[in-house]
């Protein structure tokens, strides 16, 4: 599982340093060297107006990870806010908010995002907003369930009896308790949002050219696939590796929070320790 941490870490590093590592600017065209195969000057070749593919892919890493971070931050904070309000207010407020999340959860995220983009128009900012609106209900539902469970625990009643104010309890006890599971869910969600960003950009609704993004690079290089397949293969590969990294990480973090039966070796060790 160290491999997974390395993959995600590597991509984070690429996103941070990528643009500095890139040998060329992402929009640096060179019409004398168009659609060239890999060479010493251009490790992954060049596209139809002679832009260096490696440099564009490195810049795209930052685009992908920063949009994903924005979407997650927005969806998470709004979702947790709505979830806490529903759980703490209860009654009709809870009922109405939860029915809204029911409906939103029943519709696939991509459809919600497409509908919003259809009414707002394409572009990176609108895409981030649309994906936030599609993603928040899951966080609202999760945090509401957790808070409803926690708020009946004796230690919360104890601080209430001590005269603590509601906002204080929320800030000091409820939000920290909710944050763990919510972050676990966010890790698993990240891979899905990476794909959504790339898919929307592939469909021409997200990140617009000339800003490089993997899905958008892939779609504009599709027409040259017969002569230069690497122009399609590599952006997609980078994208897929990042998604696999996030999905593995999500599964891992989720598993780590569930108590597992001890392995045979661990059992044997304990037995030996107990006897000694």
């Amino acid at each position, binding site marked *: 599982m160290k491999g997974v941490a390395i993959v995600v870490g590597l991509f984070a590093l690429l996103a941070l340093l990528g643009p500095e590592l890139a040998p060329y600017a992402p929009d640096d065209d060179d019409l004398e060297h168009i659609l060239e195969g890999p060479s010493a000057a251009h490790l992954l070749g060049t596209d139809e107006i002679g832009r260096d593919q490696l440099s564009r892919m490195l810049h795209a890493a930052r685009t992908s990870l920063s949009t994903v971070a924005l979407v997650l931050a927005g969806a998470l904070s709004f979702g947790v806010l709505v979830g806490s309000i529903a759980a703490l207010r209860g009654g009709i407020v809870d009922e109405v908010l939860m029915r809204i999340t029911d409906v939103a959860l029943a519709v696939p995220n991509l459809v919600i995002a497409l509908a919003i983009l259809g009414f707002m128009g394409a572009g990176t900012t609108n895409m981030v907003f649309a994906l936030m609106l599609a993603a928040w209900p899951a966080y609202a539902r999760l945090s509401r369930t957790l808070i409803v469970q926690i708020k009946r625990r004796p230690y919360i009643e104890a601080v209430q009896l001590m005269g603590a104010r509601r906002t204080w309890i929320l800030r000091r006890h409820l939000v920290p308790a909710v944050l763990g599971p919510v972050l676990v869910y966010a890790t698993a969600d990240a891979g899905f949002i990476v794909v959504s960003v790339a*898919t929307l950009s592939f*469909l021409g609704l997200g990140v617009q050219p000339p800003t490089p993004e993997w899905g958008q690079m*892939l779609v504009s290089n599709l027409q040259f*696939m017969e002569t230069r397949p690497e122009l*399609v293969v590599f952006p997609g590969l980078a994208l897929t590796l990042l998604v*696999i990294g996030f*999905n593995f990480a999500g599964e891992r973090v989720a598993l780590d929070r569930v108590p597992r039966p001890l392995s045979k070796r661990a059992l044997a060790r304990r037995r030996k320790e107990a006897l000694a």
Partner: protein
Amino acid sequence: MVRFILRRVATAILVLAVASVAVFTLVTLAPGDPAQIVAERRSFGADREMVERVRAELGLDRPLPVRYLDWLGDVVRGDLGTSLRTNGEIWAELRERTPTTVLLVVGATLFALIAGVGIGILGALFPSGLGDRLSRLTALAAVSIPSFYLGALLVLLFAVTLQWLPSEGVSGPASWLLPCLTLGLASGAVLSRVVRVGLAEALSSRYVTTALSRGRGRTGIVLRDALPNVAVPTLTALATQIGVIITGAIVIEAVFSWQGAAIYFLEAVKFRDFPVLQAWLLLFAALFVTINTAVDIAARAIDPRMRRAVAEGMT
């Protein structure tokens, strides 16, 4: 059972009513004045008078609830309005394009179901075998790879390099293969896991131990005793996956240049063709509610325990 069905159908209608209001409100909340947009499209630099004339013509000057009821009445009568982009009847255009999408969705669903259930059963018959371990890895890869990239890779391999199959368009069964495979793969992977995990759970129960001790073969036990237990979770997962497949059809039709209903929606999104968006979202909601209701009812019909629970008033 009848009461359960009636209750589910009533809920479905209520949800659809809410969805229709939501879809309608979304359009009125959209930035920009539709009358202005239409007038601009008809003649460049439309003046105020022309905008007002278009507004009256489209009925946009009337109060919101009236417009909603009017629109709903038209929809119920089968009139979905006119597209702003093509000026064609939305209903006629959709009807022309729907068979292509149905072909794609049904093909992908069948592939996912057959491959998923098959691989799941094989995994349970030969647990921890090479196939079982391989299928687990493949499942994770299949869920992670974006469908448009998978489509491009398959085209690269089968259409460009080997030249066995066409890369785009709809022209006979050979051209259906790649799109349906691309669209169904991830869902097949999910279903295979559901079947595999469900079978493993059923196989660890006591009646299976009893059956084994009576000398019955593993294959018979998996197929006759364990498999029925997996029917309901598989059906529920399938309902979710049909939703995923219908949504995925938008991307697949774009990748393989199929002129289906899904790409019609995508074009409407790009051109901000509000009447088509409204119609499409409403149809989509209707489709989803129908699938979910049907699955709920089917699950209850399949699983005798659920029926008994109802009879004993345990719902």
